[in-house]
């Protein structure tokens, strides 16, 4: 199990990869650069959640430390070229979400460095900044403001966002009355409108009906056409292999494989099969 960097694609590891990526791009052509990123996660077992319990634990049992650290990511290096779709796969607990959080800048790595060139935005949870009591328009203002957009600028975008989300009729309904599909559509429409340089996606394509999903895919295509980068975590392997230029297979906090999608998926299936066998025994 080696942690091979993304640019291994351009070397002997994956000679079958298409010609356009034969030459390693200059450093500034990477959208995301991770170097030796380690995240020592704290896993808490029976942590006292109140001050009272903490004091009792400290006085009675002389217990001060309730966590064990384990490396959610250990020494991950990765370079994602601009304009690519980079897929991340791996079994549960392999470190996929941790990796996205590190890229998003919400989880500072314990060691190593993270560099992101351009504006990064995440679709980890749709509609994260929404307030259930407010209606669609008010929520668009609110989440725009969260991204430092002035009100006047957001105002111009509102008709388009509502149209994309297909919610014009419900624009003044508090979103707590929305169905989960409507909520997700609004969340996606708001996020898509921000048009970041690097977009982090965590399994959100499963939302909405077939038609809306097609629409989302169109957005991604348009997004890529303008030279932006997508990093996507997914379990939908078939979909991912169509979209992704490269796939990284995470296994226990390390990249077991980085390179062409088919290779990654094959390796994942083989490994997944193995784990299932051992679990059954």
């Amino acid at each position, binding site marked *: 199990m080696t942690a091979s960097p993304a640019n291994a694609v351009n070397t002997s590891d994956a000679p079958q990869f298409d010609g356009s990526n034969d030459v390693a791009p200059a450093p500034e052509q990477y959208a995301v650069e991770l170097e030796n990123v380690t995240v020592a*996660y704290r896993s808490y077992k029976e942590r006292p959640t*109140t001050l009272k319990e903490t004091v009792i634990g400290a006085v009675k049992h002389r217990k001060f430390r309730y966590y064990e650290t384990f490396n959610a990511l250990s020494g991950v290096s990765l370079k994602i070229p601009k304009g690519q779709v980079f897929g991340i796969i791996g079994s549960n607990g392999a470190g996929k979400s941790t990796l996205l959080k590190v890229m998003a800048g919400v989880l500072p790595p314990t060691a190593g460095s993270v560099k992101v060139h351009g504006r990064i935005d995440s679709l980890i949870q749709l509609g994260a900044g929404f307030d259930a009591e*407010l209606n669609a328009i008010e929520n668009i203002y*609110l989440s*725009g*403001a*969260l991204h*430092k957009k002035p009100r006047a600028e957001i105002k111009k975008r509102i008709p388009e966002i509502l149209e994309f989300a297909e919610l014009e009729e419900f624009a003044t309904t508090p979103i707590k009355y929305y169905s989960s599909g409507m909520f997700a559509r609004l969340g996606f429409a708001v996020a898509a409108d921000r048009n970041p340089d690097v977009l982090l996606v965590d399994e959100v394509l499963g939302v909405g009906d077939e038609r809306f999903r097609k629409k989302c895919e169109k957005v991604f295509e348009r997004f890529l056409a303008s030279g932006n980068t997508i990093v996507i975590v997914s379990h939908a392997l078939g979909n991912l292999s169509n979209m992704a230029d490269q796939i990284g297979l995470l296994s226990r906090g390390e990249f077991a494989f980085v390179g062409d999608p088919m290779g990654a998926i094959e390796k994942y299936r083989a490994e997944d099969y193995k784990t299932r066998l051992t679990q059954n025994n």
Partner: protein
Amino acid sequence: MTATALYGNFFYSIYDYREYLKESVFRDLRKKYKRSSLGYLWSMLNPLLMMIILTVVFSSIMKGRVENYAVFLFCALLPWTYFNGTVKSCIGTIRQNAKIIDQLPIPKYIFSVSSSFYNFVDLFLAFIPLLLVMWFTGHPIHSSIFLFPLMLIPLFFFSMGLGLLLAVSNVFFEDTAHLTDVLLRAMYFLCPILYARDMLPPWLVKYVVLNPMFGIIEGIRELLYFGTLPNLETYLLNLSGSVVVLGLGLYAFNKADDKFVYFI
């Protein structure tokens, strides 16, 4: 991180996230008044009713000791209500905004600043019934009233600082809110709200003045009720005390910042 950097970042973040602060303060106001027919009037009626109740009960006890107890009380209730509201609403801010914190690198104290600004609007609105009561009871309105904003600076800093400290604590200890309730109730009676300093036994005064809120409330009452200018030395003492408390809050936030993600 040095104290200057802590403060610098803090004020810069407020500027940087001004759009969000505006939106979220208005959101909170809208939410608060959405389903009530009296709307914003509630912000004025609330302290007014509180004052009336307390005046009915305490004015006869205080008879002869305080002239125009209603105004005497109202002047102190104003900063207290702001302080109480800010601290209480700051406590839960990290948990309430966990979803945002989980995917957007945002200075996390922004949510507490928002609560503080929101309570500030309430304070501003409550100032109107105070003026009305003063006018109605024939209490002289001194020109020193224009210095009121100056007196709010230590109040703002101190409330914010304590709110931040408790917000951090609440991430790790879920009983913070309960403890705060007790703390606030104790502070309410240990501050010169229902009474004045000279009604306390001298041995007690020695201790209660250590609470920065004591001086802050007293200063505001002197300014509004008696029309006396704050003693510069006392004012600076209050100001520096509150600056230290806010600094502590910012320091705690900064220190715990990386750990929040694991707890929420």
